[in-house]
């Protein structure tokens, strides 16, 4: 069966909480979903992401985020429209993912029609460690269930 939905966890799994995306994906790999889902991980954005998401009908990014005064463990559900105001800004090493998506559309790539971004508020992403910070470790089951429930609901809607 062809996978129509990609869930892509982004982050560095040896950089404390930065690895929340990949860790969520590894946990999801143990679940059974109602329709076919591709579960993947990546460490970088930009053009690599463009190539990874091409061909899927829908993509759900799971990533870490830090916001001012954010509560650790909060899961934000965002769409590309939330970033529209920063769409044309540059990135030091590569293009940002919104530019990558626009580039893909311009080049007639088969870009997903629907894009969700599940961003988890984290605490620490500057120290190398294979363990989460205490607040994220404590809240991980809650974070995981929230993301899993989102996916389950979304996949039922698609079916």
């Amino acid at each position, binding site marked *: 069966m062809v996978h129509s939905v990609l869930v892509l966890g982004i982050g560095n799994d040896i950089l404390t909480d930065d690895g929340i995306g990949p860790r969520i994906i590894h946990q999801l790999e143990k679940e059974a979903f109602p329709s076919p889902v591709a579960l993947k991980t990546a460490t970088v954005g930009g053009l690599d992401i463009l*190539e990874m998401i091409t061909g899927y009908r829908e993509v759900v990014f799971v990533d870490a985020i830090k916001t001012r005064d954010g509560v650790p463990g909060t899961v934000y559900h965002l769409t590309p429209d939330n970033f529209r105001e920063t769409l*044309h*800004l*540059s990135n030091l090493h*590569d293009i940002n993912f*919104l530019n990558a998506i626009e580039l893909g559309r*311009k080049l007639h790539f088969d870009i997903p029609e629907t894009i969700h971004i599940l961003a988890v508020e984290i605490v620490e992403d500057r120290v190398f460690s294979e363990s989460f910070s205490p607040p994220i470790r404590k809240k991980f089951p809650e974070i995981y269930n929230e993301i899993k429930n989102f996916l389950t609901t979304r996949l039922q809607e698609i079916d």
Partner: protein
Amino acid sequence: MKRITIDPITRLEGHGKIEIFLKDDGGVGNVYFQVPELRGFEQFCVGRPVEELSQIVTKICGVCPGCHHMSSGKAADAVYGVTPPPTARKLRELFYMAHYVHSHIAHFYALAAPDFVVGPTADPAVRNILGVIEKVGIPIGAEVIKQRRLAQEIQALLGGHQTHVVMNVPGGVRKGLTPEQRDSIVKTSEGFVDFAKFSMNLFKDVVLGNKDYVNIILNGPYSLKIHSMGLVDENNHVNFYDGKVRVVDTEGQELFKYAPHEYLNYVAEHVEPWSYLKFPYLKTKGWKGFVEGKDSGVYHATPLSRLNAADGMATPVAQQEYEFMYKTLGGKPVHNTLAMHWARLVELIYSAEHCLELAKDPEIIGTDLRAPLDKIPTEGVGIVEAQRGTLTHHYWTDPKGIVTKANIIVGTTNNHAPICMSIKKTAEGLIKKDTKITEGILNMVEMSFRAYDPCFSCATHSLPGQMRMELVIKDSQGKIIRSVKRK
């Protein structure tokens, strides 16, 4: 004293902050470039088998994982006192050339070209890769994506994964190439050479064909007279994978050439209280501060410094372009910061040509992939040229090969002092009394460090991840009196 801050106000990763302190008369007083530093990697390595490190270090940086993999693999060879067989060495180098091709294509089209193809003071809404494609056409945009992807595929084929590379083991590599795979790489590499030449011609047409751009490169505030570092082969030609590190002074005279295990005799690191990141300098010159000139200890390790430090390129078309660049810019060494983009394209041609040479080499499909390990592991250093500078991995182990200590000097760290100096010099050249600080000015300050292709962090995935910039002018009490935001 007034204060200007250019600060990414969202997150994610380790993007820098530029602080420009204005004097009371409105001119630039001082400039600080600060970067958040990732901590604890050396400690993270301690207690692990040294052969595991080449896989772990690919996670230090999502931008140049192949560089860390190669430097780490070579350090592990040195720890065991073993030399990989010719086929293994050539396979590693083939992987590495593909890594260079994909990285240099990305930098030129996504990061350098917007400033030149679209324009340094153009509306930021169009000063990006999308604006570049608007100018050069969709077929070229598609070719950029295609060539970059093909280079990634070679890395994935040889390395097991394009990012989390598992290619190297002490004394060699895990797997070889079949003749069919080799044939495919030959064909792909021929395409790299064509595309590299095309990219150079595009640069010549768009940049060298524009008097204003040439003027910015030659006469703008983008120049820094410092020493040049680069890895060279036995003929003093540029080499990314192996050889000795050569350093030439501001006049182009060789200061010294050292083997990897000698690096501590030649490079030391200075510490400033305002930055967690250290400032490497030439030990023989000593740290004299953030100053230019023959007596300074400051050097750079960039595409331009690699060409400055070498006597030439090891492949024919790259050599022609090397000669043309220096002839056009008035001879060696070149100190124009923006010429780094030109040098990067010379390197792109070399990478593509060498990729093809290696793929055609009969030994590349050999089956002798690993030398036996018959010595007790102790200590070893591995050096390669990362795209962003000379990369050094140094490991110490116990007799069982368990790491007891590690030291890493990453590519961009070599350029920390030059980047700070370049930003200051550019800001001083562009911001005078009563200068209206526009988005264009802000971008032209950024251009001075973007030329170095800096890489300060590993967690470079980005959601949102854009380098949102805000320029804030504060008075001496810290009160914001004016701000400029990028829209």
